[in-house]
Every structure is written in C-alpha cells, then in structure tokens.
C-alpha cells in the first residue's frame, strides 16, 4: 500500500484547479474559433418588436419580485445540496445524523414559513409588502407635483 | 434575637425610601405617621437586640453582623457590617427612642407646613444615618453615617430656606462640620496607615502598632472631628445659628442625638484615647472651657431657643470633660439624661413657640403657666432636671461627672461647679421669664402687635412631652451611686482597661453630691431674686456675652475677609487668565488635530478597506522585523 504523502493529498485539488482553468480557457477559444467571424449588421443587433422598428429604447422592466423569488430559490437549492453528503454517509452517522438533518429541515421549514407570512411568495398585485410604504392617492400625488413645481428644484423625488 | 440587628437601620431606610417615593402623595398626616412608625420599628428592633444582648454573659456581649463587602481593594477591605455591643446598643436605644417621640411630636408641630412630607423624609434619613454611625463596625461606615447626619442637619437647619437667615445658618453648620470632617478623615488615614485596617475590633487589638506620638495625633484629629460635630471650642458657634431650623429638629438633632456623635466617637475610640494622656488633657480642658463659656453666654441670651442652644453646648462640654478624664460611662450617663431633659425642654419650648405663633423672644413671653398648663408642668420637670435639683436625672448624672473630675483635677472641678451654678441660674431665668411674671405678650411691643391668647398643643405633641418628662425625672435610676450601678455594669466591658476609676469613698461622694445640690438651689435662688418680675436687666446681659464673646467677629476678621480676598484673586487672575488660558490652548490644539483626523473618514468603503490593509501591512512589517532581529 502506498503511504499517502502531502503532495498526494493535494493532487486532486490541484487537478480540479487545472481542469477549471482549462475549461474556462477552452470556452473562450471554442467560441472564438467556432463562432461566425463576420460583424453583425445593425438590424441583427436591434431589439425585435414584432417586426416593427422601435423608435425609442425598449423598456427593460422586470418586477423586483422575480429576483426575490429567484434568490429564495437559490437558498433552498443550496440547502438541498447539503443533503447529498448526508445521504452518502447516512449509515455511518446513524441516528445522530438523522436528528441533525431533521433539525436542519425544521430550520429551513420555519424560514419558509416566515417567507410565506411576509408575503414574499404571494404573486400578484402587492399589498402586504407595501404596507410600510407611504400610501399614495391620486390626490396626494397631484398635490405633490404641484408643490414641486412651485418650489425650487432642490428636491429629488424619493 | 440578636439577628434582628439589621432591622434597626433598615426600618428608617425603608421609611425614607417610601416617603421619598410616595411622600407627597401620602400627604399630611399620613406621611408623618409612616415616618414615625418606621422609627418605632427601629426602636422595637433595638429593644429586641438589647434583650438578646442581655441574655449573654457580660464578657461576650459583642456581635458583628456582616451584610456585604463594600470596598475590597487590596489591603483596604471594608464591609457593611454592624457591631452590636453594649455601647452601640445603648446609643441606639436612646437615639431611636427619642427620635420616635420627636417624630410623633412633629406630626402635630409641622401640620401647617407646606413641605410636610419632605420634613419626614429628612428626619427618617437622619435617623438612618445616625443609627448607621452608631452601629458601624468600622471607621469608614461610621464616616458615612457621620456625613449623613451632617447633610441631614444641613437640610433641616435650612428647611425654611426662603428665609435668608435659615439658608445661611444651614451653610454655617455645614462649613463648621466640614472642618471637623477633615479631622475625621485624617485620623482615619493615620490609623489605617499604621494599623492597616479600619475595623474597630482590629484597630483595638493592634493599638501597639501606634506609637505614642501617633496616638496623640490621632486623638487630637478625632477630637477635632468631635469639636465640629459636638459644637465645642473652637467650632461651637454653628449650633446657636442652627436654631433656625424647626424646633423638633433642634430637639432631635441639635440637642439629643447628632451633637452627641462626637462624644460617641471619642468613647468608641477609647483604646486609642487610652494611649495618649496629653490628648486626654487637651480634651478635658477644652470641654471644661466650652462648658463654662457657653454657660456664661446662655445667661445673657434673649431668644428662648438660643438659651437652650448654648445650654446644649455647655452640657456637651461636660460630657467632653468627662471623656477627657476617662470617665466614659459618666459621659454616656449624662448624654442619655441630657437627651431626655434637653429634648423635653426643646419640645416644651416648641410648644410655647407654637402657642404664641412663632414668637421666640423671651421679652414677649411671661405668665404662660395659666394658658399652657401641660407645657408648664413638663417644662418644670426639665428645668429642675437640668438645674441639678435632686432627685431628678440631671442631679445624678452631673454629679457623677463632677465626682470623676474632682478626683482627676481640682481646678477643673471648680470650673465645673461654677458652670453648674450658672446652669441653674440661666435655666431659672429662662423659666421665670417664660412662665411667671407679667403676660408681656398681651402688649404690643414696637411695631409688633399683641399676640392672641396662646393655645395648648394637641395631644400628639403632649404625649412626647409627658414621656420625656417621666424619663427626665426618673432617668437617674440608670446609675445611682449607692446601687449596683446598672449602667456601669452594662457598659463596663467596652471600656475595660481604659476607664478611669475615681476610687472616692462613699462619704466623699455624698459630700460632693450635697455640694452639687446646694449649688443648684443657689442658682435657682439668685435667679428668683433677679428675674422673677423684671424682664430686662441690661447690666446682667452685657454685649460681650450677647455677642458670644465676639467669637464670630473674630473668625470673620481672621478667616472670612482674607478668604474672600484670596477667592477674588483666584477667580479674576488665576482662573480667568492662567487656567482658562491653558485649558483653551489645549482645547484648540486638540480640536484642530481632530479636525484633521476626521478627514480620514471619507465615507468610501474602498478607503476603509485600504485602512484595514495598511494596518495589516504595518503589523506584518513589524512581525517580519521581529523575526529578522531574533
């Protein structure tokens, strides 16, 4: 049996590093060699809007909620990742591991509960989330604009 | 039973806290009753402790109860603890007892006052401090109580601070006491530096560590403290001014209890006093001189409370004289009897003042025995007691002191006897001017209209008078010369080894007592002749005596004026130019460098991170330099 030396232990990591660098470099090289060499024409770069030539910059608005849900997903996704190593050594860990994972799941579940309660996952017209914001009515907005027009423009709309 | 000792200070403390919190809401008279009950509780606790102490054999009546460690710094270990021994419990008994009576009296006396509840807050705080002073097992906690009673005295003297005279009298009392306190502190430092402890029992068992010169210095410093608190020469003239306070205050603080704290301190430190015969001579002479000087002044005053105030100074002079002679038990015997009859006299005088709507001038009194029968009767007892007429308390206690002084030094004894004569004389003068002769208050005098018919005080004020009159009459039984001498037996162990024994034969004691009696009667008789009808005899009240031997003028010229000049110089030249200049210079230097330093705080995270990196780099460079060096 070969006695593992220090270098042996780190070899795998080193290998991973090399492969990672090679992959990143390879992607660049591949796209450069395989992609079309010609510069795209103006029409090709322009955004597509049902065949009509746009006369102003396209609005690029996504509801912030979209990102929020995506972030929440990532968190839970990563939590799932933790379950893999557990599954691998499930038998060695025995009941201790099971309890640990159960506690872990409870924590995750409670945070899900929290997210639901704050309305982070409720889709549709936002109500709860905006409870903290100053409620605006058409009247107050109009008054505000009037006032803004009157006063010097030192104020940036919040 | 001894374990209830902690309740003695706790009761007034709780009373104080309760009144401080809810006093105004409780109002009149509930606040007064709560204050009284708190002190009554302390009195009961004292009696229980006392009974417990009596249950022990006479040589084992010493008991320390620790609550918590206060200052544990290196060699200085100070605990909040009480030392229950015959001396402290004896003091506690009459302090809480008399306080209880005077609280009761105040309920009636103060009933019209705006700051009714505030009065009882102060009174309870006073009782707490006084009990603390007496019960403490070390000098520092005693000092806390000492300062506590001082500040309560200040508050109470200046209780009617809207009056200029009251406010300045409070300040005067405070200043004089501060001078004494310096003595206390220095004595404490001196003893600590030699013995390494402030605990009484430790000090007393290590007195050999004090050299004789050190002991004399410590005794004199302690005596300086006592002269401040107990109004002895040269610090005595705050006490008459302190009469600006309400009369119950004068009775409680400036007659019965606080002013005896100095005597208590000297008695408590008797093993140290025992080391210095020179120091004791100084104490004896000063005490005797104070007794005499104050008695002469008392003979010439026109204000009923001023007479009693100087009388108090004189009587405490007797106690100090006794302490100086080593007759501690005689001093304590006089102290308790004095508490009874002087408390009584002040309360009765308060009753007179109350009845005459705050009139204090003797010239505007007279013939009051018809209108104030209760007051008259009780005052009569007090008068005879202090004058030394047998068989009242004053006769026995003063006789005990004088017998000891006689055995110690004949000149001092002569001065003491003359003072005793003067005492009988001025007290009789006071009595005749107040209760006999013409009813001068019926006439208008100068711009002041005639008084209404005086009214007798309500029962809450009469009960304390009666109780105190009873005590003043029979107080002598505590320590009658031919009996087993109860007080001597009880207090003896505290003063073992330092007590002076006069070794007089029974016959000579009786002769001395007879002389005392004759002197007292002579004083009464002389006053009878001179003052029974006439209210004004300018020849007998010369300006020299009226102005207190020009003592205040002397201090004013010696200390007051130069002091003011120095203060003015310091304020206008030293402070305004030198100190402010330096301070402002430093301040502007700091400010300009700070303004520079704050520019570093740019608000940008990148710069902050740079700061961290630079700091880290500096540390690493330092480390690298170390590895190279080594």
């Amino acid at each position, binding site marked *: 049996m070969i006695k593992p030396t220090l270098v042996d232990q780190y070899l795998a990591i080193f290998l991973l590093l090399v492969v990672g660098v090679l992959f990143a470099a390879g992607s660049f090289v591949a796209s450069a060699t395989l992609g079309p060499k010609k510069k795209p024409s103006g029409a090709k770069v322009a955004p597509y809007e049902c065949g009509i030539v746009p006369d102003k910059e396209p609005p690029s608005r996504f509801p912030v909620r979209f990102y929020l849900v995506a972030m929440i997903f990532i968190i839970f996704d990563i939590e799932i990742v933790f379950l893999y190593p557990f599954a691998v050594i499930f038998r060695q860990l025995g009941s201790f591991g099971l309890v640990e994972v159960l506690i872990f799941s409870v924590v995750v579940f*409670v945070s899900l509960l929290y997210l639901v*309660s704050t309305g982070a996952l409720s889709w549709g017209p936002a109500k709860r989330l905006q409870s*903290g*914001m100053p409620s605006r009515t058409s009247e107050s907005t109009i008054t505000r604009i009037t*006032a803004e027009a009157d*006063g010097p423009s030192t104020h940036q709309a919040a | 039973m001894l374990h209830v000792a902690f309740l003695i200070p706790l009761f007034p403390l709780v009373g104080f806290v309760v009144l401080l919190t809810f006093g105004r809401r409780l109002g009149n008279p509930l606040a007064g009753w709560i204050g009284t009950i708190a002190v009554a509780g302390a009195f009961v606790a004292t009696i229980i402790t006392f009974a417990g102490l009596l249950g022990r054999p006479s040589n084992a009546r010493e008991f320390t109860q620790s609550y918590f460690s206060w200052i544990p710094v290196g060699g200085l270990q100070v605990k909040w603890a009480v030392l229950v021994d015959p001396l402290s419990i004896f003091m506690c008994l009459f302090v809480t007892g008399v306080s209880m009576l005077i609280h009761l009296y105040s309920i009636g006396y103060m009933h019209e006052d705006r700051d009714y509840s505030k009065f009882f807050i102060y009174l309870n705080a006073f009782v707490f401090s006084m009990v603390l002073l007496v019960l403490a097992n070390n000098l520092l906690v005693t000092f806390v109580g000492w300062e506590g009673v001082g500040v309560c005295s200040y508050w109470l003297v200046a209780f009617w601070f809207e009056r200029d005279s009251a406010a300045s009298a409070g300040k005067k009392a405070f200043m004089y006491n501060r001078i004494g306190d310096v003595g206390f502190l220095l004595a404490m430092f001196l003893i600590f530096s030699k013995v390494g402890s402030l605990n009484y029992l430790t000090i007393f068992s290590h007195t050999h560590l004090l050299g004789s010169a050190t002991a004399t210095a410590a005794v004199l410093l302690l005596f300086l403290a006592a002269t401040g608190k107990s109004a002895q020469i040269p610090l005595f003239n705050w006490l008459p001014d302190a009469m600006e306070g309400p009369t119950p205050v004068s009775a409680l603080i400036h007659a019965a209890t606080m002013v005896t704290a100095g005597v208590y301190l000297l008695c408590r430190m008797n093993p140290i006093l025992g080391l210095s015969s020179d120091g004791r001579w100084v104490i004896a002479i000063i005490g005797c001189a104070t007794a005499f000087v104050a008695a002469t002044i008392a003979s010439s005053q026109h204000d009923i409370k001023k007479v009693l105030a100087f009388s108090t100074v004189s009587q405490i002079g007797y106690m100090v004289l006794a302490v100086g002679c080593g007759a501690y038990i005689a001093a304590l015997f006089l102290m308790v009897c004095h508490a009874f009859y002087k408390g009584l006299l002040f309360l009765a005088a308060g009753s007179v003042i109350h009845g005459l709507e705050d009139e204090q001038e003797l010239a505007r009194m007279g013939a009051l025995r018809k209108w104030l029968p209760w007051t008259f009767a009780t005052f009569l007892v007090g008068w005879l007691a202090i004058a030394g007429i047998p068989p009242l308390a004053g006769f026995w206690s003063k006789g005990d002191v004088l017998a000891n002084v006689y055995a110690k030094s004949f000149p001092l004894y002569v001065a003491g006897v003359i003072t005793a004569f003067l005492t009988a004389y001025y007290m009789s003068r006071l009595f005749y001017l107040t209760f006999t002769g013409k009813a001068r208050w019926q006439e208008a005098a100068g711009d002041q209209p005639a008084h209404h018919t005086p009214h007798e005080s309500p029962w809450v004020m009469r009960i304390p008078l009666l109780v105190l009159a009873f005590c003043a009459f029979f107080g002598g039984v505590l320590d009658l010369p031919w009996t087993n001498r109860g007080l001597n037996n009880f207090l003896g162990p505290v003063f073992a080894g330092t007590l002076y024994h006069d070794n007089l034969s029974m016959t000579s004691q009786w002769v001395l007592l007879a002389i005392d009696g004759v002197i007292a009667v002579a004083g009464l008789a002389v006053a009878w002749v001179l003052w029974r009808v006439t209210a004004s005899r300018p020849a007998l009240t010369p300006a020299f005596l009226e102005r207190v031997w020009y003592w205040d003028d002397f201090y004013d010229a010696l200390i007051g004026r130069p002091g003011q000049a120095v203060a003015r110089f310091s304020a206008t030249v030293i402070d305004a130019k030198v100190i402010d200049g330096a301070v402002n210079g430093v301040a502007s230097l700091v400010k300009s460098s700070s303004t520079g330093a704050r520019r570093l705080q740019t*608000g940008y995270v990148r710069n902050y991170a740079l700061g961290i990196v630079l*700091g880290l780099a500096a540390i690493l460079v330092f480390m690298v330099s170390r590895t190279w060096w080594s």
Partner: protein
Amino acid sequence: MSALAVVTAHSTIVLPHIRYLAILPEIVMLGGAVLLLGIASLVRRPLRVTVSTVGTIVIAGTSLGLALWQWADISSHGPYTAIDHAVVVDGFSVLITITVACAMILSALVGDGYLRREGVDGCEFHVLAMVSATGAMFMGEANDLIIVFLGLEIMSIALYVLAAMNHRRAASGEAALKYFVLGGFSSAVFIYGVALTYGATGTTNLTQIADFLSHNVIASNGVLLAGLSLLLVGFLFKVAAVPFHMWTPDVYQGAPSPVTGFMAAVAKAGGFAALLRVFVSSFGTLQSDWRPILYAVAVITLLFGAGVALVQRDVKRVLAYSSINHAGFVLLGVEAATAQGVSASLYYLFTYTFMTIGAFAVVTLLGRRGDGHHDIASYRGLAGRQPLLALAFAVLLLAQAGAPFTTGFLAKFQVVDASVNAGSVPLAVIAMVSAAIAAFFYLRIGLIMYTPVAGKGFLPGIEPLDDDEANAGPSGESETDGTGDAAPAELSAGNGQRPVWSGTEGAVVVRTQLNAELLLDTAPGEVQVLDPSEDIVEADAVDDETAAESAAEDTAKVPVPALAALAIGLCVAVTVVFGVIPAPLIDFAHKATLLFIP
C-alpha cells in the same frame, strides 16, 4: 487512486461526545430564535411585535438563568471543556454569556418601542438579534479557532442584516452594505490567519496551540506570526480598534438606534472575549511579539476615538467614536496580558454593556419617528422638557466618561491599574489623557441638555459649531463640514436636517393633505386604525419632507414607552448601584478570571 484510499480508509466516523449542558444557553437562544420566527409568522401582523418582545425576553431570560446555573455549577465543580475540547465552560465564558444575555433582554425592551414607533411589524429584529447574540456567546465559549470563526460569522451576518433592518432608511442600507463588505473582508483575513496558525502548529484547538507553543521552540516562526497578525486584525476589526475602525461611525450612525446599542455591546463583548482567550491564553508565550502591536493600537485607538468625537455633531457619531475610545480602554486590559488585565477587561465589557445600551436607548427615544433627530442641537433644553430622561442620559454619559460612583469609573480604574501593574505606564497615562479629552464631549452633550432653548451662547468653545451648522445650508455642503466626517451625502441625508423645501407653502399643503387622509382613515373605526404602521408612516413622510417643522418638533416632548423606560432604568440602576457598591461585580469579574482555564 491514493486519495480515494484515504477517504475509504476512515469509513467509520467517530462522533465526539456532545455535552449539551455546556452549550445549553446557546441552544436555548438559537432554538428560541427559530421557534419565535415560526410563531411570529403564524400570528396576526399587529401582534407580532408583542409576541416577539415577550418571546425574546422569556428566551433570553431562560438563557441568562441557564448561564447563572452554569456559574453555580462551575463554582462548585470547576470549569471543564466539552465536545472534543472545542468548547470551554469556565467563569470567563459564563460571564460573557451573561453579558450577552443581559444585552439581549435590554435591547428587546428598547427595540419594542422602536418597532412600534417606526411601524415595523415583524419579528426580524428580535430573531436576528438573538441569532447574533448566540454567535457572541459562542465566541466567549470557543476553545477552537474554528468555533471562534463560527461564532464570529453567526454574530456578524446577523448584524449585517440587522443594520439594514429598517429598509425604509437609505442610511441603514448604506451602513449595512459598508459593514457587510468590510466585515466579509475582515472575516477572510481572519480565516486566513486560522489557516496559517493551523499550518504552523498543526491544530486549531486553543489548548493544544498553547501546549504546542510551550513545548516547542520554533526556529523560524514567520508563518505563525503572520497567522497571529491576521487573527489579530480580524478581532481588532470586530472590536473597532483604530485603524480597523473606519466602518464604525458610519454603521453606528446609519443602523437603527436600538441595533446600534446592541451592536456596540454584543459585538464588543464577543470580539474581546475571543481576543482575550486566543491571545492571552493560547498565544501567551508569544507575548513579546503581540504586546507591542496592541500597545500601539491601543494608543492610537484611545487618542483617535476621543479626539475625533470632539468635532462630531451627530450624537450617534459621537457615541460611535466614544465606543472606539472604550475599545481602546479594554485593549489596555488585553495588552496587560495578566489575570488582572483579563478581569478588568471583563468588568469593563460587562458594565459597558449597560452604559451603552442605556445611552442608545435614550438616543432611540430622542430620534423621534424616523430615527433622524440625532443632531446635538436637538438635545438642547431636554432637561427642561423631560428631566428624568435627561438625568438618565446624563448619568449614563458621566459613567462613560468615568465619573466616580459609577461603574464607568471603576472599569477605567481597573484597566488602568492592570496596565500600570503590567509595566505599561505611558500607555496608562495616555489612556487617562484620552479620558480627559473624552470627558469634554460627554459633558458637552450634558450641558446642552441642561441649557434652556432660549439661552444661547453658554460656552464660547461650543457656539461656533452650532452657528456653522445653522448656516450650513443644503445637504451639498455637508460634504465638507456638515455631519462631521465629510461623509457622503447619502448618510447625512438620513438625519432629516436638510432643508428640502425652501418654499414652505408646499410643505403645508402636503401636511394638511395627509392630516385629512389620516382623519379619513380613522373615521369609520376600522381595525386598520389600530395597525400602527399606517399612520406612523404617513407622519414619517411628513417628517422627511418638511424639515421646516423639525425645529418646532425638537421642542416637543418625546413619548417614552414603558418598556424602554424600564430598560433605561435598569441600565442606570446597574451603573449607579454597582458604582456605589462595587464589591459584588468586581468579585464577579475577578472570580470569572480565576475560573479561567487556558
């Protein structure tokens, strides 16, 4: 192939024996936080703050009780290590646990009023604070660098989020981001230090490091010293020592005031606990290497903290710099590297917790709705309006200045004493000089509170600053001399002092309009009216937009919620009572040090 063999060779996993009692306070705190999060999520929105506060006090109280039980346990049975020696239960760790639990209870009391006032109806503040407190407790209990790091991260990450808790304040967001970026940076530095230390000694266990260092003489200890330096930087960042302090003023100012108080107390307690344990006990043999560094850091921390605080106008910034100054004082005890120094530092940390939470509690109340009125000028005449509040603040400030008969004096006295006994006399002198400088700005706040609004110009040295500020004009100028540090406009914008509307007519229109809406809301008597978020926020908007009114509002009384009053009262009581009767606490800290196992 060989790597695979290594993995399969250890096919049985040896689990250490876990003594749950050793970490019970932490388990309760963390478990309680999770439980509370679940419960608060299930109850109705208006009840959440109440449930959180009550829950937090119960949980932190239980944790405190358990810590006291641990104290009794180790007093009779002696200290011990547990969980494969990764955790140590000794007087030191229990004292830190108690400190943190106390800080948690007090902050919960203060936070309750704040959340209601600001209309933040959630359990986030309480839950995050408890998580953060758990981290600090672990830092005190850690006997392994990995546990230290775990504690550090648990504590810090929760604090980053806490700083941004009130997401309606732009300043909070900025503060949190700064804190997060720099905190991440310092954590990286710290973990690198752990790695280097491991490389040099072959272990991360503190006891084993100490053993290793006492039994081996390393010829070339460059790696170890580098690791030590990096660890030191990680700690010094957390405790806000110069020059790693720069986040402090911005974060303290920007974070919601109750969070600031909590952060000041807990982050310091945790950071110093780990610093003391790692350096004094594990690296004790390397004293000659790290003591000079701490010496230098202490000197500049003391002087910088005290000096720069002088020229601040925002009370929270003043307190931030004062906390830097306090960190310098605690460093005195660390630098001494003696048992006395450790005891003094512990005493300092414990008492500072009460002083700082109390002070920030007052600042929270005086910040008014929107938490923006922190300019020193708005404190003028406070004593006339609310004498008790002013008195409490004055006492707490005096304590921080080190006035006698407060715990602050004893704390300073003890660290200076320890420093002198350790031979660092010049350092002690500098510390006292800095205390004298610091006394100025504490007294200045006190003086301003006790100066009537009408009576201007009571101190020539102070007036110019006020005048500057009065004429400072729009926020653009704050870049140079507005809020002290020439901080970017975003931060200074938070304090509501910028004159947004020069024409007041518009402001008045908005105000009346909003008032009308308020009235409309209340008219039908709906349940909504009870929901504090609605009306408070609208008033908040008024606050932000009509700075002209802030002057009038400055002279109005601020409401003092009962719980906040209780918290302030407790802080003042502890500060004064144990200042007058010092023995119990000094004994406590002293005994904690005696039970310290290296």
